[in-house]
């Protein structure tokens, strides 16, 4: 029997392999921010931060934080040579106008229709949508990054989200700590499973319609098979 263990790093590692050199990527607060740490050295993505910059660099060295340079999560950051700053209207013009290739967001729930909920639990917690609604609407590809199960053991992938939606029919890819799913035609399509989890385990632990793709394979590939 496989026991589920939350593993945020594999989610970040897998998502980091999606991008190609030159693509523009926006990484949300929390888990998605980790993705930046795992982009392969031979791939140069351009990170956009919706509070107003392109060319997001690594966190500053201790003591080097600039009070005027933060990311959308209020953390000190740096800018790479060749980056640019702009105001919020320009930033969301870039986002809404389709100039961002990928947005990676954390979720409370996501579902097989490509819906995503992450800004509000009525009566409990209302952080607000921030830039997430524009990012999901405007980006070319929307990637939901989430642990597969709640601490309670319930699936975060649903048939139908029950929380207020951040995005309606916008999610294209869901990467959890058990596998990589494409959202197509009202179903999750399992493209990769992350051992020790198996397609059968995933089917049994996902409260939604999941199709196992014929070419579904394990990830990461065994070193020997590379």
């Amino acid at each position, binding site marked *: 029997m496989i026991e589920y263990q939350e593993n945020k790093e594999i989610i970040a590692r897998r998502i980091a392999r999606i991008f190609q050199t030159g693509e523009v990527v926006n990484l949300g607060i929390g888990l998605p921010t980790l993705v930046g740490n795992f982009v392969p050295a031979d791939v140069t993505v351009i990170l956009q*931060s*919706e*509070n*107003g*910059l392109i060319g997001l660099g690594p966190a500053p060295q201790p003591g080097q934080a*600039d*009070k*005027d*340079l*933060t*990311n*959308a999560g*209020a953390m000190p950051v740096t*800018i790479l040579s060749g980056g640019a*700053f*702009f*105001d*919020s*209207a320009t*930033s*969301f013009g870039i*986002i*809404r106008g389709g100039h961002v290739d990928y947005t990676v967001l954390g979720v409370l729930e996501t579902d097989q229709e490509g*819906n995503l909920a992450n*800004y509000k639990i009525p*009566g409990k*917690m*209302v*952080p*607000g*949508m*921030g*830039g*997430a*609604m*524009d990012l999901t*609407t*405007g980006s070319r590809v929307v990637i939901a990054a989430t642990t597969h199960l709640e601490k309670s053991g319930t699936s975060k992938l649903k048939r139908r989200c029950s929380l*207020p*939606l*951040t*995005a*309606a*029919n916008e999610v294209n890819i869901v990467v959890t700590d058990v596998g990589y799913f494409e959202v197509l035609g009202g179903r999750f399509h399992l493209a990769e499973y992350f051992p020790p989890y198996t397609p059968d385990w995933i089917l049994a632990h996902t409260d939604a319609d999941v199709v196992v793709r014929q070419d579904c394979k394990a990830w990461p590939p065994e070193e020997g098979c590379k």
Partner: protein
Amino acid sequence: MIKKPIITAAEAAALVKSGDVVQVGGFINCGSPDSVIAAIVARGAQAPRELTLVCNDSGLHDEAKGKFTSIAPLIKAKLARKIIASHIGTNPETQRQMNSGETEVLLVPQGTLAERVRAAGAGLGGILTPTGLGTEVEIGKQKLTVGSKVYLLEEPLPGDVALVKARKGDKAGNLQYAKTARNFNPLMATACKLVIAEVEELVEIGQIDPDQVHTPSIFVDYLVITGAAT
């Protein structure tokens, strides 16, 4: 060029009236006019009340660390009747006031908020955006089809007073913002009847390259000089 009056933060604070719609630049902990905000709160019983605050977010509110940024001090002092923002997740006091019914909170997607403020400054009657379709954001709004796509009509959001923060200003009121401290500041400077700019550094007219002005002087009514923050 005309020189703009240079006033103190306290004088600026006195220009904000109860009931005003006040637009405040800044993004959580970056680029807010903190001196003027502090001066408003410092007015105590004379502070303006029943404000409608328009801001990207409601700032950091951290009782444990005693850290309150952006509009958080105004909310803490209960000067707001309504808050229009995209995010209130870093301010538990905003959530508390909302849940208790003390303060109304209207959540607006960040890009829509930016365009609504810009539209007010640019004399547009609104903009059509796909953002928010199929979500609670669309409730009560007109939907229009252009080409084959559906959009929400979002209306302009003008203000009575803009409180903005710039890195540098010249005596005519031309402003330059620093890095991500720019955010909503230049948009709000176009959208309000009265614009008060807090600047870290004041320079002579002519010392800002006209190709590199972020907010042209004609938008700015008053300057408050704070010196560089730490």
